[in-house]
């Protein structure tokens, strides 16, 4: 194709550059911003440059906010992926603002999708920004025998182009150079003249371009008329044509390599094969999380390490110095009761050596269970049955942690394979029925990891209406990994029926809730338009890294709340407030939900953290159906504090509070109805 190479100007020596720009001293710390389409590897670069960790996933929409760090004396920023600079959605607005204020832009592009990615590159150049291009995914180029003439590409764009493979850290040694060599690229002549009519002393070139392209917010800022949609279209089509010309010139040779995974990708799209694939994955997940981890591993860590070793030793150590009664219950191999003996140590265990000897022999027998009842209130608060120190540590480290790691691991595998966008496509039509498009599956799936995180991901959805629906779904029905962990443990060994009951009740609520919201909320939802990343084998190192950082982050955040929650409940208990609360809720709990009165504790705790609430059910002697009712209630009950706060921030007070109170009603209504039927 004919390329109008002479129809471009090099802006370096042009009046268009504001005098301010040339005055910037090289010494000064610069604002370096990583910009690119979704899923091109920006976060990989950011992790390397900053030495920090941000999530890397194989689907669009992982990075929804800006992260700042430092690189060689400059500030460096990771941004959400965008297909162009503008304000079509929240991610774009966030990215646009940071791009406008950037000194240097490192534009990451996916070498396999040049024709898609160069659109943004040209737009950045048209904005008159200093740019360097990082041509990423060069490993895939080699694999597929595609050649890209980077020298020519660099000439055509007028900026430096560096080949990189971010996952293997190839080309990273050139990053410093890329920052320093960033410069203003070549611009098409027509657009150049058009721009010159808008640019003034106070309106920069980048602002001018966005105004021409119809960005109202920027036009308002400068109080000038903003471009019409037609004008934007003309510029866009011109740019698209230039991209196509450039790609024709710089890229050659293509082979059919990589078709195997493409094929797999298509199989997972088509419901005939896609649904079986989904089912197989769910079954595998069940065996991994539901069977291996939540039964075998947790059984060992919680009971053997947590209760029998840690708690026993801490409690008996404490019991040496403070009044305590101890029950030792013996069980045989089949876990049936043999006998029980109560020891009383009014002035501590060590005060009565004979009894101590008998006690320690008995309690060390196989199948012995030891319960300590401390007399001192303060000791009870810290080391008792719900002790801040004893119970919390066991729950956190030996019950939750293994499960949470398992969940994050599975999520990371899914995220890295590129499966989620295909799931979104496959489910698109079903989601249309509840006023969403398939994309909504991504925040919802992430919600199974952490609702708080998923709340933020709703930003990737097209309209406020879709965001409201998904936010509500997340708070009402989706259990997070921590909560799922406890649920899995509670239901383990209960058989198939309770699990199916739980799943079907929750699914029903999901359908009813979203149908009602879809009818109630005004407006229309946006149609699906989603680019599908390559499907490929998850990178084990990335999966492990992500699992580690997320689990670590979880523990860091959760532990504090667990200790605070346990302390609060402990104090409520000691001061008698818990009894009052239990009595107030008693009619509800006992007659409507048909649970013991103490289940009300779970609701206090559930307000702090959902998993903590569910964990409160552990100690109660519940029948299988009672367990099922209580986990249904707890699942539908209010979101945890962290997620509540984030929701208020994302969706505003009114909507946030409505959802929060709504969950109270739904939880007790649905829980009660189920209880009335099955118990």
């Amino acid at each position, binding site marked *: 194709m004919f390329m109008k190479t002479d129809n471009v100007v090099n802006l370096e020596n042009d009046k268009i550059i504001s005098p301010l720009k040339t005055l910037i001293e090289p010494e000064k710390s610069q604002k370096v911003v990583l910009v690119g389409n979704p899923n091109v590897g920006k976060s990989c670069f950011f992790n390397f440059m900053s030495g920090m960790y941000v999530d890397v996933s194989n689907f669009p929409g992982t990075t929804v906010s800006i992260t700042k760090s430092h690189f060689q004396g400059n500030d460096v920023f990771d941004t959400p992926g965008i297909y162009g600079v503008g304000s079509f959605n929240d991610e774009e607005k966030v990215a646009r603002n940071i791009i406008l204020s950037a000194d240097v832009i490192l534009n990451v592009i996916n070498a396999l999708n040049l024709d*898609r990615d160069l659109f943004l590159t040209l737009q950045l150049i048209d904005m008159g920004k200093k740019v360097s291009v990082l041509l990423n995914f060069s490993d895939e180029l080699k694999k597929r025998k595609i050649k890209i003439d980077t020298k020519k590409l660099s000439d055509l764009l007028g900026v430096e182009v560096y080949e990189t493979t971010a996952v293997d850290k190839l080309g990273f040694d050139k990053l410093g150079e890329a920052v320093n060599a960033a410069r203003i690229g070549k611009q098409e002549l027509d657009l150049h003249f058009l721009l010159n009519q808008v640019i003034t002393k106070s309106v920069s070139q980048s602002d001018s371009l966005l105004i021409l392209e119809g960005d109202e917010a920027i036009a308002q800022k400068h109080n000038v008329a903003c471009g019409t949609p037609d004008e934007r279209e003309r510029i866009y089509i011109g740019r698209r044509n230039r991209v196509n010309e450039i790609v024709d010139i710089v890229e050659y040779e293509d082979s059919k390599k990589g078709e195997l995974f493409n094929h797999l990708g298509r199989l997972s799209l088509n419901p005939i094969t896609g649904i079986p694939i989904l089912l197989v994955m769910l079954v595998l997940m069940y065996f991994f999380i539901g069977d291996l981890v939540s039964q075998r591993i947790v059984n060992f860590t919680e009971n053997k390490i947590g209760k029998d070793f840690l708690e026993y030793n801490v409690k008996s150590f404490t019991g040496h110095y403070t009044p305590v009664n101890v029950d030792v219950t013996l069980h045989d191999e089949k876990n049936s009761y043999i006998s029980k003996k109560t020891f009383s140590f009014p002035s501590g265990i060590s005060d009565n050596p004979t009894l101590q000897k008998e006690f320690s022999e008995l309690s060390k027998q196989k199948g012995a269970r030891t319960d300590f009842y401390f007399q001192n209130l303060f000791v009870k608060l810290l080391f008792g049955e719900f002790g801040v120190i004893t119970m919390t540590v066991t729950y956190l480290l030996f019950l939750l942690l293994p499960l949470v790691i398992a969940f994050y691991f599975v999520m990371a595998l899914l995220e890295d394979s590129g499966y989620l966008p295909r799931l979104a496509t496959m489910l*698109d039509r079903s989601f249309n029925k509840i006023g969403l498009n*398939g994309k909504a599956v991504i925040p919802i799936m992430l919600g199974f990891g952490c609702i708080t995180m998923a709340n933020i991901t709703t930003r990737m959805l097209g309209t406020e209406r879709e965001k409201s629906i998904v936010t509500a779904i997340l708070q009402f029905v989706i259990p997070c990994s921590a909560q799922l962990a406890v649920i899995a443990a509670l239901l383990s060994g209960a058989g198939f029926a309770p699990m199916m009951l739980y799943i079907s009740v929750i699914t029903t609520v999901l359908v009813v809730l979203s149908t009602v919201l879809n009818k109630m909320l005004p407006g229309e939802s946006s*149609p*699906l338009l989603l680019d599908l990343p390559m499907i490929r084998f998850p990178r084990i190192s990335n999966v492990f890294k992500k699992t580690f950082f997320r689990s670590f982050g979880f523990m860091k955040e959760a532990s504090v709340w667990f200790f605070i929650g346990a302390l609060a409940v402990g104090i409520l208990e000691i001061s008698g407030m818990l009894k009052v609360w239990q009595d107030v809720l008693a009619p509800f709990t006992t007659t409507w939900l048909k649970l013991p009165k103490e289940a009300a504790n779970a609701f206090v705790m559930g307000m702090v953290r959902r998993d903590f609430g569910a964990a409160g059910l552990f100690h109660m002697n519940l029948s299988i159906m009672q367990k099922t009712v209580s986990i249904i209630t707890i699942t539908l009950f209010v979101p945890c504090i962290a997620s509540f706060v984030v929701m208020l921030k994302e969706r505003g007070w009114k909507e946030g509070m409505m959802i929060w109170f709504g969950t109270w009603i739904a939880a007790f209504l649905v829980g009660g109805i189920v209880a009335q039927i099955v118990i």
Partner: protein
Amino acid sequence: MPNSTLDKAKRGNPITVVKLPSGNIKSQLIRLGISEGDRLKCVQRLPGGTIVVQKNRQEIAVGFDLAKKIHVIIQ
């Protein structure tokens, strides 16, 4: 089939884009690499009408309601 819409495409059909719906969605399509005159391939048509097209090496999923509004020639 001249004068058709994208939702009518079948798996394997080569497609030429004739007209995109106007408004923001058009700009979004152009950015993604789909503009008028482009040649695509329909790689999948899901029951219900969600269409997956391929342009060069990139696959893009297009919802049924949007596909209905994209005018194409199906070869």
